[in-house]
């Protein structure tokens, strides 16, 4: 074989090898792959040709208004509802065919968590642990009660629990025994501020220390701020945007709130100047404007050199602002 032909063959073989390796690596990273998912309930489309991908270690927020199809999407992923059309793979396995295997490594809380009212918090966890295929493990139950702040309620019957504690118990069950994938539907609703902070810390630590992939559907966008790394925006059962939070927010203008020692003067200066901002206005005793993310340091610097003291400068709920630019 001539040398040139050998080199060309060698090049092609290496190319095919690299491409295969790259594809394999990419596919391995994908935890959830949904393609063309459609679901109707009583003739009404709830999900229409919906596609998404979630990668290993993602902290994914599913965002959308009421009736966007968020909960139905989670129900389908939890195999509580069957899709009319579409292909779903979780951990590289077909969802319907390998349901049990998939659910073994998945913690789910869809809708309001419900427990056996006449049993204690501890017994409920023990019972659902058995349903999840685990042996009753007192140590793990106590650990999970500790991290979710339920240790005091361990011996209390569920019928005597507050709505917030029930929600915490639902979360405790979802993260029981460190599943690789946790799916939570509106986990912050009904929780007090302290509990919200505690739960967010728990999710963050599981995500960063154990690499747990999270999918959280929520209407409370402020609670997702700083938590999620990936966003899936839904409306009317359809995907309207999907991607990394930084990428998506970086491309859009974000709302900014400023408080200075002289708001009137600051607004005048900001609007007169050539800074890439939309009209700054005073609303509710603070200055509100929208700008590119990159412009924020320049605004701060500009006000400083203009001899205006900035007491506060913070972005408005960035996810909410971004979401509102997409929705009707």
């Amino acid at each position, binding site marked *: 074989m001539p040398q040139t032909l050998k080199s060309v063959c060698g090049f092609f073989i290496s190319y095919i090898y690299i491409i295969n390796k790259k594809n394999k690596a990419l596919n391995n990273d994908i935890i959830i792959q949904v393609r063309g998912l459609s679901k109707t309930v009583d003739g009404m489309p709830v999900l229409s040709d919906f596609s998404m991908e979630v990668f290993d270690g993602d902290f994914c927020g599913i965002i959308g208004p009421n009736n966007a199809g968020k909960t139905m999407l989670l129900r389908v992923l939890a195999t509580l509802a069957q899709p009319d059309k579409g292909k779903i793979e979780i951990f590289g396995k077909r969802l319907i065919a390998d349901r049990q295997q998939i659910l*073994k490594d998945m913690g*789910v809380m869809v809708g309001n968590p*419900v427990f056996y009212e006449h049993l204690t918090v501890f017994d409920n966890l023990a019972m659902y642990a058995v349903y999840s295929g685990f042996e009753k493990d007192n140590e793990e139950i106590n650990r999970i009660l500790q991290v979710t702040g339920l240790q005091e309620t361990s011996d209390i019957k569920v019928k005597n629990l507050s709505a917030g504690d029930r929600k915490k118990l639902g979360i405790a069950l979802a993260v029981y025994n460190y599943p690789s994938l946790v799916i939570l539907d509106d986990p912050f609703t009904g929780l007090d501020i302290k509990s919200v902070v505690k739960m967010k810390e728990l999710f963050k630590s599981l995500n960063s220390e154990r690499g747990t992939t999270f999918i959280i559907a929520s209407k409370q966008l402020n609670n997702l701020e700083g938590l999620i790394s990936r966003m899936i925006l839904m409306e009317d059962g359809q995907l309207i945007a999907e991607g990394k939070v930084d990428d998506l927010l970086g491309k859009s203008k974000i709302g900014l709130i400023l408080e200075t020692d002289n708001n009137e003067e600051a607004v005048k200066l900001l609007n007169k100047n050539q800074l890439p901002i939309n009209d700054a206005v005073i609303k509710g005793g603070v200055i509100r404007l929208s700008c590119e993310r990159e412009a924020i340091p320049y605004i701060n610097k500009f006000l400083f050199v203009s001899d205006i003291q900035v007491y506060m400068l913070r972005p408005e709920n960035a996810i909410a602002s971004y979401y509102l630019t997409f929705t009707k």
Partner: protein
Amino acid sequence: MFFLEIYKMFTRPFALIALTVVFVLILLFGFSFAFQGEEFFQSLTAVFGKGVEFEGDLVNGNLFAYQFLQSTWYFIPLLVVFVTGGMISEEKSQGTLKMILSRPVSRTGFLSAKFGAAAVYILILIVLIALFTLGAGLLFFGNGELLAFDDGKFTLISANRALLSFAIAYGYYFLVLFSVASLSLLFSVLFTDSVKSIMVTASIILALYFISNLNIPFFESVRPFLFTSYFSSWSKVFTIGVSWMNFSFDIILLVVHILVFYGLAMMFFGKKEILD
């Protein structure tokens, strides 16, 4: 999972209430038999007139257990409907089914565990009846020959044969009650409201039972296909010259009904969506 379902079964208030009702019935029946057993026996044998005399004590534990079965066999299936009718629909309406099915639980395994728990409950119910009617009856009212009566026919059977007949009758009674529970579980899968599932099952059983026992030629052709037609076949074992062939056929028919109800329940449960 099977033991979990049994545990859940016995923590349901209605399951315990039903067992208590049966126990209280046995007690009341026992008291009335203890104080008015002779009068009862006389009224029972009044058809023979004064010319017939019975030797030995026929007012005994065997008669007590037999009489209890005769008086309650149509009522106990309704109790079973009340207990089993809510086994799945209640979990659905309360939301615990959603929690369970989002765990790695096989739907077939879960439903089979429910059927298993119902079977264990019925078994306990029958053991309770056997212990407190036959066991306690023999202890308090003594052993002896049994004067069995069915459809106007009287059969006098020996004490040993009576014991064997009771064992077979209780086994058959288990199948009857389990077929009722299977139908009940099928409707429990279909309905979210447990009251609805209980009412529908009870109505169907009563209607079928009515058709099975109505002496109208119009229903004669459908009667062999109704499982309620075989509910009272247990009494066949208390007759002389039992046709075991016929009795086995009754057993097979009940088993077929159980399998059909189980299969249908499995089919519907496998496709069941939890959208609440």
